[in-house]
């Protein structure tokens, strides 16, 4: 099938998946808890409020009607109201999401910049000390609990050594740049505030390093195995037989072909980074989705929890869709198959 058919098929599949995601979150929020209203409002809620919400939610209505209501509301962006912030959940999510986006993207970049070269060299120099060191790095990286690593790094690099700043996105005394995208790095550049840019960068360093370490391990692993597999293929031998420079053989004939599985893993790594954000944002006082949802659990802010889950699932699905499209671009067999 050609490219257009492929894209359409992927879009259709993603839409189906998103619908399924709505089903799942609906089940989790309306069906599974013994008393959804009680879960949302907490045990101290006055009975009138409980009744009001019960009617509003239509919990006396048959299940499929509830579901239709739920879907209609979700599609319009109504994810309920957070009892903690007393604002619509969607508004909260949109406010806190950019911080997580900034963190996840920075970590992913680190992961790719470290992981791909490391995995490639590890494969090209198989059996050497670099290879062994890289494999140790990978195994450690996927076995370390990110939240613990974050704590340890904070303890060492901030409290003990003072090399990096502490929790937060900016120095506490500094006024943040005017909010355009919510990504402080971008906003500070747009506003010409180099001091804020520098401060934000220094604050981003540690959390991004923690999550980036985890990302780099996974990416290095898949890069190594993918490159090893491609290295054995016939076309690499042909390339060398033509007298191509080794550098070109590696870049154009090995790496370029090894990219495909790597790109796929980058998609799943992004999911892992979102998970990591949830676990580490509290430690670094990073005002993102992770901290928002963690606070929501402790506060038993049920709507916020479900809203976050839905939101993250949507983001993740879109990331995977993007990955699929990039894959199609990379592999002409998909495009012109």
């Amino acid at each position: 099938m050609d490219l257009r058919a492929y894209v359409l098929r992927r879009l259709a599949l993603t839409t189906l998946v998103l619908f399924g995601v709505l089903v799942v979150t609906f089940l989790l929020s309306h069906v599974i808890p013994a008393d959804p209203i009680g879960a949302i409002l907490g045990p101290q809620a006055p009975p009138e409020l409980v009744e009001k919400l019960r009617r509003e939610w239509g919990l006396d209505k048959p299940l499929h009607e509830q579901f239709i209501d739920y879907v209609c509301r979700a599609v319009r962006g109504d994810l309920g109201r957070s009892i903690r912030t007393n604002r619509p959940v969607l508004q909260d999510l949109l406010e806190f999401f950019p911080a997580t986006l900034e963190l996840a993207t920075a970590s992913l970049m680190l992961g790719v910049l470290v992981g791909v070269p490391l995995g490639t060299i590890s494969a090209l120099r198989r059996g050497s000390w670099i290879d062994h060191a890289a494999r140790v790095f990978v195994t450690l990286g996927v076995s370390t609990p990110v939240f613990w690593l974050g704590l340890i790094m904070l303890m060492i690099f901030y409290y003990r050594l003072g090399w990096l700043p502490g929790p937060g996105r900016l120095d506490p005394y500094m006024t943040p740049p005017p909010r355009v995208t919510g990504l402080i790095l971008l906003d500070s550049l747009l506003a010409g505030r180099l001091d804020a840019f520098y401060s934000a960068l220094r604050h981003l360093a540690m959390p991004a390093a923690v999550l980036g370490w985890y990302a780099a391990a996974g990416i290095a692993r898949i890069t190594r195995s993918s490159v090893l597999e491609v290295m054995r293929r016939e076309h690499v031998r042909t390339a060398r037989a033509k007298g191509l420079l080794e550098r070109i053989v590696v870049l154009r004939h090995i790496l370029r072909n090894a990219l495909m599985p790597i790109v796929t893993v980058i998609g799943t790594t992004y999911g892992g980074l979102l998970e990591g954000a949830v676990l580490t944002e509290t430690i670094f006082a990073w005002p993102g989705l992770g901290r928002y949802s963690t606070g929501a659990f402790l506060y038993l802010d049920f709507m916020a929890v479900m809203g976050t889950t839905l939101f993250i699932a949507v983001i993740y699905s879109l990331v995977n869709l993007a990955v699929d499209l990039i894959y199609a671009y990379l592999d002409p067999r998909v495009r012109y198959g």
Partner: protein
Amino acid sequence: MGDRMEGARRTSIRGSLLMARLVLSSPTGFAGAVIVAGLLILSLIGPVLAPYDPYKQDMSERLMPPSWEHPFGTDQLGRDILSRVLYGCRISLSIALLVVAISATIGLLLGLVSGYFGGLVDEALMRVTDLFFAFPRLILAMAVAAALGPSIINTMLAIATVSWPVYARLVRACVLQVRNETYIEAARAIGAGHVRILFRHVLPMVVHVVLVQATLDLGSVILLAAGLSFIGLGAPPPTPEWGLMVSEGRLYIRSQWWVSTFPGLAIMISALGFNMLGDALRDAFDVRLGR
């Protein structure tokens, strides 16, 4: 062709011994096996070894640094951390083993049926697993745990829920490869029924995939469970669960670093052991199957 069937059956005792030798011959395999064995032993006799009662509070001894009396120090309620870590080993390992056993079994059965019979059942399973894969594992586990309420059982249910799809997909892919092999046709030709074929012929070829994944998964589940407890959705206090202990020590990380460090180290070493063992197992199977 008949050799394959024989080979699958021979992978009983002699095969297992050969596998064990292969695994232990590599340094990571050996280290992993040692760690896992250690964990299993500790989970059994840990409570006996523990010098103190993990729940006993002693405010006069709170936040003491590591010493001879308290090798891992004490926490903010004066409880001995070493004892809590030892008890936590049993908890973490039980959770991991139970969750993996359940999810692997469910995934295996569904994958076998789906891959072998194909058709609508297969399509349905693929769509359902697609759905599960649309969420990052922790996020979905979080949502399930939040819906059910914080407790160890609910943690296990939540993690099992997000774990089985991987096995189903893996097994299904393997079954698809095996299904078209000629010896399956041969078995049908002599009149073997579906169930018999599934269990006598298909299953042995699929088992190695499940074993490798399960071993690696044990490490992931330990990390996942600890993560859930860390954010407050897992075992409730005062359970000596490692993730919870790291969370409790968070406020004291500045000066009383030991409260969070030792439980976290325990998590890491456990995950490390299973990951190394799983990798070595996978390599050993590759060798055995001639790759």
